[in-house]
């Protein structure tokens, strides 16, 4: 087998996972751009979206379950912002970050209570879970449509930010909180819209992400959440195209590392398993540290200077 044929399946799944991370990463980067807050609870919202889908799909047909899941996830994101972050608007940034960690802890424990810690099987969604063949590699349809859907959604979002009134308000708030307020922008509604958009994308992302995985446990959201955040930092936090590019890079590297043993063995470069797949999560953080050391503001980030 040629190199291309061995690498292709990993590359495909990497692009797909990258697209799913991108949908979560956009939520992180938008919130960080406006509130300067690492929303640690975002990954857990993503997990809750997955769990809701499990319960709704068991109770009602899919065409009702999917919109309901998305609507409730958005409501959850909105509520979290209003209850846990809004009262701390004037507090030091560290307090807000701790509050986010608290929300994440609460959501995980709540999920643990409701599911009893059992692995919940994600419902099979007919069309997108079908097996198809691309360039000779067998995969599910969701793997192929994810990147396209992601890019389409992100284009819509960029349009929203650059060409609508609310988008302009968002840009103003992220540039300068206080001045924007003085200009008559309603800060709280702008922040709420940001959370609504972020959680909407996370809900769509969870639909795509969990379709490819056997099940959900309460901690399922933590790792994808962290990786998506890393993707946002990698691309330059606050920049939406940056988050998307970062997410694809991270998704692909993770997937390649997972298959590196197989790839190297079929190429005859190594004789036995080196067990690179142990590092599939760690590679994300290696990339993060490399970029932070050499270009602390990320690939597309703006340079900021400290004023005394």
């Amino acid at each position, binding site marked *: 087998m040629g190199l291309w044929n061995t690498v292709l399946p990993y590359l495909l799944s990497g692009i797909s996972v990258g697209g799913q991370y991108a949908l979560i990463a956009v939520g992180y980067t938008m919130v960080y751009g406006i509130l300067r807050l690492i929303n640690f609870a975002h990954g857990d919202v993503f997990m809750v979206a997955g769990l809701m889908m499990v319960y709704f799909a068991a109770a009602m047909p899919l065409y009702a379950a999917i919109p309901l899941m998305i609507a409730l996830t958005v409501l959850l994101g909105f509520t979290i912002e209003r209850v846990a972050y809004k009262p701390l608007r004037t507090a030091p940034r560290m307090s807000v970050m701790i509050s986010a960690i608290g929300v994440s802890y609460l959501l995980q424990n709540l999920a643990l209570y409701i599911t009893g810690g059992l692995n919940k099987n994600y419902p099979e969604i007919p069309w997108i879970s079908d097996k198809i063949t691309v360039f000779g590699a067998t995969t599910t349809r969701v793997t192929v449509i994810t990147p396209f859907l992601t890019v389409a959604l992100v284009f819509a979002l960029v349009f929203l930010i650059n060409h609508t009134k609310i988008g302009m308000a968002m840009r103003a708030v992220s540039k300068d909180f206080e001045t924007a307020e003085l200009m008559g922008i309603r800060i709280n509604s702008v922040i709420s819209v940001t959370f609504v958009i972020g959680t909407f994308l996370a809900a769509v992302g969870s639909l795509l992400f969990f379709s490819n995985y056997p099940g959900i446990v309460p901690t399922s959201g933590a790792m994808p959440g962290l990786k998506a955040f890393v993707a946002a930092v990698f691309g330059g936090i606050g920049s939406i195209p940056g988050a998307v590019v970062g997410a694809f890079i991270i998704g692909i590297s993770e997937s390649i590392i997972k298959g590196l043993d197989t790839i190297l063995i079929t190429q005859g470069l190594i004789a036995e398993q080196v067990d690179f797949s142990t590092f599939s999560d760690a590679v994300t953080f290696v990339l993060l540290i490399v970029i*932070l050391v050499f270009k602390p503001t990320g690939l597309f980030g703006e340079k900021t200077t*400290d004023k005394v």
Partner: protein
Amino acid sequence: MIDRKAQTRKNLISLAAVLVFLALVLVLDQTIKPTSKAYMLLTVLQKGSVYALAAVSMNLLNGFTGLFSLGHAGFMLIGAYTYAIFTIPSDARDTVYQYFDAAVRVSFPETLGGALGGFGTALGVLLAVLLAGAVAALFAYLIGLPVLRLKSDYLAIATLGFAEIIRAIFQWKKLGPITNGSNLLKNFARCSTFKLKLGETTVSLSTFVPVLIATLCIALIVLLVNSTYGRAFQAIRDDEVAAEAMGINLARHKMLSFCTSCFFAGVSGATMAMVLSIAQANNFKSAMTYEILLMVVLGGIGSISGSVIGALLFISASEWWLRGLDSGTFLGITAPTVFRNGFRLVVFSVIIMVVVLFFRKGIMGDRELPEALRKKTKRGEVSGNE
């Protein structure tokens, strides 16, 4: 002059209080039997002292130096593994490393115990604990070189990332001969076996040892915080630029604080291995760091006694007081459908959220216990005079 005398007296009172506490723990250790219900108290003391030390060491970094690091679980993992690897007795080593050919075949307690008897065994355990801290500090130094230049959130996420990388490395099959891969380490020197033989009588030390280790380390951290280094750390926290202008070497002090904090995190990891009698990389996830951070917040960021109280409350509540919420009956109310597995943690996280949102300063704020007590009595006197 009078001030200095008053200070000495205060220090003596604190020292006496700590000694009384240690003596009390030693007595409790003898009187409470593992079968009795009150044994929960000892479990809480054991685990509580592990987490108290972890919380205080995190507070040194987050609360006193203003470096928001989230890598604690990783350094505790290093400590736990180092301790475990160097205290597994040689006859147990092959059963523990059943899938690998163990590379490290030294057991400090055994080697020193063979040469010096019972005292040597204790010395071996102590040496392994110190080594655990030292290895964690070494890793902290290497990690600190690139990441300590980063600011607030970036530092948090980079240290969190390093903890994850460390966890992956320790589970790597190629390092199996040292770390036993993803399998757990066991059969090493653990608390439940610590005993002191005085002629005929045997004194159990299973709770005393972890409490003693935590107390000594926390005392060292208190001394550090009150030294000139501690003042420099706090100056860095309050204003980096001003601190640098006053002649404080930022890089050096940040590194010192980071390595010290990680040293004690390593020691607390070693103590944790001692208490739980197993060490497994998978237990040291970022969730553990979050829990320690929540303890620090609960007690008050910037207060050492606050962190200790926070950790003890956190452990008592989650391990002991709220246990009924999981098993059907709580405060006399029986409702098995609501009070089932996991409800305890839900209630607990709601309490934490309330503290985070409405009592932002935590229990102690940035005050220490003696100060807080004194203020209270003073206020009492004033109101009494009126």
